[in-house]
């Protein structure tokens, strides 16, 4: 069991795909249930994985390692493993998948079968990215996620869906090419594609690390997206259907930050130390820029999309603080962002389903007609702007703390500027809340809007519970990641020592 649980978690959605293929085409409800059930079982499987996870062990666990095929002496392996850096992300993925599927119940009405199939395939790719420990396998999963997402945006998206889908595809593809070259180089040079082996070897000279770091960073920075590579994100979000937006923001973007964490810090620690101030600079620009631009948006979804850019700036700043607090905060903030931004997209989706518009000017005073909706939105909004006691604060504060005292970043100025971002977050988040919920209820079309139904409550309440849980007692979450993060910190600091 232990050895195969990761394979199960990764590939179980395929079972759902097969069942979906055989369902008669008029039985759409059965398709929805099949997909949902598959996602739930996958989530349960990931919980079983969690139960077997030993948090004090910093190395990979539950490893499956078989030779897939060989090119000469170079083995390409089927190599799955989980450690503290990835376990939370796997759980986040399987968790959000369930909620995202719940949100599609009435939102997706045409080509249900295809939608569900793409969605489950997307889950395979995403989980595979976080579990794949062979560079080649990782790359396969990495690119694989593009395909379902491309279709999800391109088929079920809004008016300019093709434009957005192609842009999304091309941007991320362009970044991946450089990464592929770097992967091939690494494999040929190091004689292995195994990530832990490459990390252990640390055999790459510093100046070469620099270029390889940049090649990987190109792929990841576009995915995150870091300023100024973000221009695909608002398009993709605005056009994508709600469920795809949730996964796009909640999980897909984390592939980028996870990539930085796993590859750039692990394989190129010296380059990481050297480039940390630059990454921090771009992260801080992203924080402030995203916050300022979000404030000027008229479309709620776009506002949330730019807010994502700002939040992911925090994650990057935390990761490249290269100390314990920064990294821990960065990882937790990935989860927080997944939860709160995921919830925000769900919330926007619910509104869109009712009114078929996302222009903020069309709303106002919704609190009066939809009090439960407003209350939950308030909590999510507050979590997103980092109110203490909710999850966002724990992440943001530890990131600020880490980056303020970071030797690698080298200047307190970045953390102080990032803290300004906290003020700006309040500005745009409260602006959004005010535009939607406060003020007089003067639009006739809004006077009859129904409050949340049970299914919608079911999609939001689990997130809200987690928001409180992480905010009030984040110990279990930090505990899962601690050992692995300590290992990374040691690796990086010994690299920093070696540079001196």
């Amino acid at each position, binding site marked *: 069991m232990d050895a195969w649980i990761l394979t199960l978690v990764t590939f179980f959605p395929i079972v759902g795909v097969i069942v979906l293929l055989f369902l008669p085409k008029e039985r759409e409800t059965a398709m929805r249930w099949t997909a949902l059930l598959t996602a739930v079982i996958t989530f349960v499987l990931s919980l079983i994985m969690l139960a077997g996870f030993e948090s004090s062990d910093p190395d990979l666990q539950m490893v499956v390692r078989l030779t897939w095929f060989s090119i000469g002496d170079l083995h390409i392996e089927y190599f799955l493993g989980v450690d503290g850096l990835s376990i939370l992300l796997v759980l986040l993925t399987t968790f959000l998948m369930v909620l995202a599927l719940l949100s599609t119940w009435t939102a997706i009405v045409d080509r249900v079968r295809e939608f569900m199939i793409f969605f489950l395939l997307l889950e395979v790719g995403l989980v595979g990215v976080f579990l794949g420990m062979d560079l080649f396998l990782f790359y396969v999963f990495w690119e694989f996620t593009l395909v379902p997402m491309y279709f999800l945006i391109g088929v079920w998206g809004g008016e300019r869906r093709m434009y957005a889908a192609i*842009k999304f595809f091309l941007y991320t593809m362009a970044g991946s090419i450089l990464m592929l070259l770097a992967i091939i180089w690494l494999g040929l040079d190091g004689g292995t594609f195994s990530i832990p082996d490459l990390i252990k070897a640390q055999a790459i000279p510093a100046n070469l690390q620099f270029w390889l770091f940049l090649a990987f960073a190109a792929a990841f920075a576009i995915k995150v997206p870091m300023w*100024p590579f*973000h*221009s695909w994100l*608002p*398009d993709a979000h605005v056009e994508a259907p709600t469920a795809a937006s949730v996964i796009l923001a909640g999980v897909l973007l984390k592939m980028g930050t996870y990539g930085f964490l796993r590859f750039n810090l692990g394989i190129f620690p010296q380059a990481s130390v050297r480039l940390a101030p630059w990454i921090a600079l771009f992260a801080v620009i992203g924080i402030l*820029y995203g916050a*300022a*631009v979000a*404030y*000027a*948006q008229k479309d709620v979804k776009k506002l949330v999309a*730019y807010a994502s850019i700002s939040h992911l700036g925090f994650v990057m700043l935390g990761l490249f603080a290269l100390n*314990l*607090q920064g990294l*821990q*905060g960065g990882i937790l903030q990935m989860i927080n962002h997944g939860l709160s931004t995921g919830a925000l997209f769900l919330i926007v989706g619910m509104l869109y389903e009712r009114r078929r518009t996302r222009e903020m000017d069309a709303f*106002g*005073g919704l*609190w*009066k007609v939809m009090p439960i909706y407003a209350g939950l939105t308030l909590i999510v909004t*507050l979590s997103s702007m980092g*109110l*203490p*006691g909710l999850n966002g*604060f*724990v992440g943001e*504060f*530890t990131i*600020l*703390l880490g980056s*303020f*005292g970071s030797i690698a970043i080298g200047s*307190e100025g970045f*953390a*102080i500027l990032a*803290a*300004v971002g*906290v*003020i700006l977050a*309040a*500005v745009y988040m*409260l*602006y959004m809340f*005010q535009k939607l*919920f*406060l*003020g*007089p*209820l*003067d639009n006739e079309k809004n006077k009859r809007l129904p409050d949340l139904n049970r299914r919608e409550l079911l999609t939001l309440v689990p997130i809200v519970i987690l928001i409180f849980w992480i905010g*009030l*007692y*984040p*110990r279990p979450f*930090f505990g899962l990641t*601690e050992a692995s993060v300590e290992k990374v910190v040691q690796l990086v600091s010994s690299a920093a020592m070696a540079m001196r």
Partner: protein
Amino acid sequence: MTAEALFSLAPLLILFPLLGLVVNIIAGRRLGERGVGIVASAAVGLAFVIAILQFIALRMDPSGATIHIADWIVIGQLEVEWALQIDTLSVTMMLMVTGVGGLIHIYAVGYMHDDVRFQGDPSRFPRFFVYFNLFIAAMLLLVTGDSYLTMFVGWEGVGLCSYLLISFWYEKGEDGIGNALAGKKAFVVNRIGDFGFIIAMLITFWFFGTLTFEEVFNEAEAMGAGAVGAATAITLFLLVGAAGKSAQIPLFVWLPDAMAGPTPVSALIHAATMVTAGIYMLVRNAALLEIATVTPDIIAIIGAATALLAASIAVARFDIKRVLAYSTISQLGFMIAAVGIGAYVAAIFHLVAHAFFKALLFLSAGSVIQGVEHGHHRADSHEEHFNPNDMRVMGGLRTRMKATFWVYLIGALALVGIPPLAGFFSKDEILADALLVSPAVYWVLVGSAFLTAFYMGRQILMVFFGKPRSKAAEAAEESPAVMVAPLVVLAILSVGGGLINSPGLLPLTHFLEDTLEGLREPEFVAAVAAISTLLAVLAIVLAWLVYGRRPMAHDPVRRLGSLWTAIRHRWWVDGFYDWLIVSRYISLSHWLAEVADEQFLHDWVHDTVIARSFVRATNWLASVLDLRLIDRGFDGLGALTRRGAGGLGALQTGYVRNYAVAVFIGMVLVVSYLLLS
């Protein structure tokens, strides 16, 4: 019961209000207004009982205790716990918060009953008490948190409640959105203060390696001179936080707007408790302030300046609550100044006394407002834009609302500092200390005290004396007992509150000595008391001369000319901020969004630079290769491809047998190759 056992009850302090709010969220609709009010008030009442128990425990064991509840954030060196610190300072605050808070809760049951009907949404009644209980819980966490970070949770929590309660009637106010905007303004300005608080925490952690108050102070003491720079930086940033929360220069602009909330909110949050959090926080950090160099001076200057500035603005206000709001800012300035000159006990003393009489003033103002509102409805006058807060529509209420008049008068005299009311002792202690430390601060404060007496005299005369200036005022009626009873209790406290630290006995000073080390014993300076009392009386007389003698059409002080214009426009501070920051930020963000992001990055870079150059590059390559190849006599690349494709296409006949032949040919060839090799 041992002290230890009593201390261990401390978590209940926060638990009770939380419980109350949970009950009201779940069952608020079913409980009815009475039930909701009882649950909420009982929750705070129980918290008050716990606070008294803590006080008793402290009499047994003055050193206090730290109650650990659970871990919070533990990463490497960073160890922050959910822990409550019980010492004399926090108990003083919690007694005040739960005591005054409880009274205001009771008052609010009566007030909100009418308010939700005037505003037209009775279903919002339970929500008010949910927020109120949440506020009490957050405030208690703020005063009991044992580290900067736990304090910060309460700090932001009260800010959140303030936001929610200011925009409680979110569809009302100017253009229907005024209240919501006021709430947002309060939150954002508070966030600017929080920014300072956060930076202070970051410095503290990286300098002292911990965020727990006790450890930081011990460490700072041990380091001695080595900690001066850090302590100065930390306290300066903390000052930013305090300025935000306690509405000091330059961040005071949110508090007057916050009057958009229902009156009990103004009393509880924006007068008695939340706004004093900044003072509490600075006093908590007395150990650092003692070490720091520049900060105390800056604090004293800011406090004194705020006191004077706000007092001057209050003179020209017509909204009954706004007068009180500026008065609050001014009094907070007194307290901040007291912290700056090292008179920590005086600051806390004034904080508590101020909580009594300012809560009293606000609540009675609420009573006045509702009285007038009732009158408005009874008189059945259909004036558009009737504003029950406007003092110009009042007058002569002395006879119609007797109880309210008397308690208002007591509150006002206490604020003005007429002996032997509470305000006299507490203000005097500050002034006496100020004279010792810095005469300049002293004179500024005396000036503001004079203005205070003047605008309070003006207010009382405008509201209660003279003839009614509107039909509503003529028909005004007294408030119900549930509202008057808390007023009476607060009035008693305002009268006797001075006893808390009466000269000679100094119970508060001795009480706080257990927490704050090296306190000076304040002296009662008779000359100071005499001067301020004399000035107060003088100011009241002046007010009577100006306002009391004849019916008022225009404000007589208008004759001050440009000075009047300045204070009428609040010294243009709001406008200046709008011009300097708000509109700049809005245009910046629009510029970034529309020009930098949309037009430049999105459209130009993507569509023009990337997409079009790609097309252009391919065209260029194609045409150049094409031409060169033709020049050399070859077919063009495109033509070649096309022809090749055409040729290959012909092979694709679609006839399966042709394909079979092809396979067959291949097979024969492969076998031949194998045989021959």
